């Protein structure tokens, strides 16, 4: 009876059952998008904490783990744009930053245009729209939002003047953005309601009410406000045509209008990974190198005149999938994307430097979380869970109603109300009652609606 001697091993102790570690194929699916010839697969991010519980792998959020693994590498940084790698973060957050950069970071842009004269061929509204899109070189953090009831003042408005004309007999001229002239003292147009001043020394009321000149403020004294680029064509004037206007810039966000977006664009892509599944040598290697339009592959000499293909520049791969097309190339080359490695590019329009923009974007997400978690602050939570005594006053009713309120008191115990006052209609009404809606206002309670069907 030899069989009896073989020890019984529980199935979980068998050597091929992984413990505390994902098997390689699952690990690949978790961390990589596989770009196969027909469609990308395993594109989702598996974030549920218990996703791998059966394999003894904890998939929950470990901040320490995040801290140890998160890395940022700056690749390129200029005044206008930057590229950096964000490694060890989820697409949800990378995308949140991108969305905030595009739509929720404020800048200043021209919003109101007061046109005194426009005899050019470009219509007033089109001209105003073009002006709105001119990026301004000014830090929006130094300004406040202007709400509907605010008067334009030096803290929320920047005023520019544009006066350009083309003399008769001369050739056509271009109106460029450098002709926008900053008026640090505010508007120069007097309100149409204003009577000609009897006293010539008093300043007439204009479309803005500045308390002081903006160029006297320390932030702007050495750094005049103006368009970021001097050579943006705003309009073209023919002989005898003229434009005279005033443009008022205010603070706003990209989600209201794209002119307030501080980035020309902000985008990311996941790091491409090109893997040679087999050695590719000789002519096949030459063919592979030729296949790739962006020269991802190189040829390596491995001695004795033999040549082997290597992946030299995976980062420049565009995942065009040319290298896995035809025959059984997909058995030789695998194209993947690393799910937690983002190549992030920010192109600033000029109000702020790209690195400042990103920091501000992260701050905005932080503020959102802070605002939300403040609402669930401990004293509010306590109110909901504590079970103080709730005296209920019933103005009229009979046994049936009493029993009913006895029942609801059980639930009201969880509420924190010093005093609850309930107005009850006739018992006839209550008997057919299906829904009672009670509206509580801090400490007082009132039946709002008695719906009987």
């Amino acid at each position, binding site marked *: 009876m030899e069989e009896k001697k073989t020890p019984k091993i529980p199935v979980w102790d068998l050597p091929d059952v992984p413990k505390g570690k994902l098997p390689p194929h699952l690990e690949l699916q978790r961390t990589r998008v596989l770009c196969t010839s027909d469609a990308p697969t395993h594109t989702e991010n598996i974030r549920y904490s218990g996703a791998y519980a059966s394999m003894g792998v904890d998939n929950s*959020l470990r901040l320490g783990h995040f801290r140890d693994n998160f890395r*940022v590498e700056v690749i390129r940084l200029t005044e206008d744009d930057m590229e950096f790698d964000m490694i060890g973060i989820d697409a949800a957050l990378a995308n949140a930053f991108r969305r905030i950069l595009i739509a929720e970071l404020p800048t200043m842009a021209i919003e109101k245009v007061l046109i005194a004269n426009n005899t050019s061929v470009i219509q007033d509204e089109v001209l105003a729209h073009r002006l709105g899109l001119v990026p301004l070189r000014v830090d929006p953090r130094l300004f406040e939002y202007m709400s509907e009831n605010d008067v334009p003042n030096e803290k929320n408005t920047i005023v520019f003047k544009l006066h350009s004309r083309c003399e008769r007999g001369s050739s056509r001229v271009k109106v460029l953005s450098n002709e926008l002239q900053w008026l640090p003292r505010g508007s120069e147009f007097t309100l149409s309601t204003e009577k000609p001043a009897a006293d010539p020394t008093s300043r007439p009321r204009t479309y803005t009410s500045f308390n002081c000149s903006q160029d006297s403020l320390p932030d702007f004294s050495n750094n005049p406000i103006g368009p970021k680029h001097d050579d943006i064509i705003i309009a073209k004037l023919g002989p005898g045509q003229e434009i005279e206007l005033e443009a008022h810039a205010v603070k706003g966000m990209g989600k209201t209008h794209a002119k307030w977006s501080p980035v020309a664009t902000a985008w990311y892509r996941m790091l491409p990974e090109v893997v040679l599944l087999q050695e590719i040598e000789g002519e096949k290697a030459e063919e592979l190198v030729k296949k790739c339009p962006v020269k991802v592959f190189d040829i390596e000499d491995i001695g004795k005149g033999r040549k082997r293909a290597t992946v030299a520049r995976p980062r420049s791969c565009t995942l065009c999938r040319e290298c896995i097309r035809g025959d059984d190339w997909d058995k030789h080359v695998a194209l993947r994307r690393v799910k937690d490695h983002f190549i992030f590019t920010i192109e600033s329009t000029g109000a702020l430097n790209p690195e400042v923009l990103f920091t501000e974007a992260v701050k905005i997400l932080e503020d959102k979380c802070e605002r939300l978690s403040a609402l*669930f602050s401990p004293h509010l*939570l306590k109110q909901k869970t504590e079970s103080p005594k709730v005296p209920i006053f019933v103005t009229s009713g009979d046994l049936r109603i009493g029993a009913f309120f006895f029942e609801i008191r059980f*639930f009201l115990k969880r509420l924190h109300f010093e005093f609850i006052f309930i107005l009850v209609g006739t018992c006839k009404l209550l008997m057919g009652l299906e829904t009672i809606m*009670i509206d509580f206002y801090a400490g007082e309670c009132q039946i709002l609606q008695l719906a009987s069907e």
Partner: protein
Amino acid sequence: MGSGELALEKRRQQLLLLMNFDCGLLILLYDYCFDNVMEHGSYQDQSQATFSLTDEDHTLANSLRFTLNQDPRVTFCGYSIPHPSDARVNIRVQTTGDQASEVLKDSCQDLMLICQHVRSTFDQAVVEFKNKKGLDAMNIEP
């Protein structure tokens, strides 16, 4: 805006009693209204609730879903935007027993910590890059 005190002041609590005398069923639902958040839940079971946030979108909701999903106390979470022209997002949280609002709050704080770490790492990387570039420039110029 958004401070606890202000929220307390603005607090408006609504109770919805759904009663069915026949089967003796009494479900007590609540709506907590804060600044821009409304919590819909039931008193019998506070481990599940829907949070309706105004003036928020995928940006916050998806990030929160990310942190919520990784919380072992959460059995289900998801979000939806009921209508694209309505600046509102509903976040559903169901837990293994803990109070849903508490879990959501913890997730917010996790997300905040993550953001802080991202910011400091990023700033550091930028400073390092600038220093390196400065050094490179110095090496080339003379």
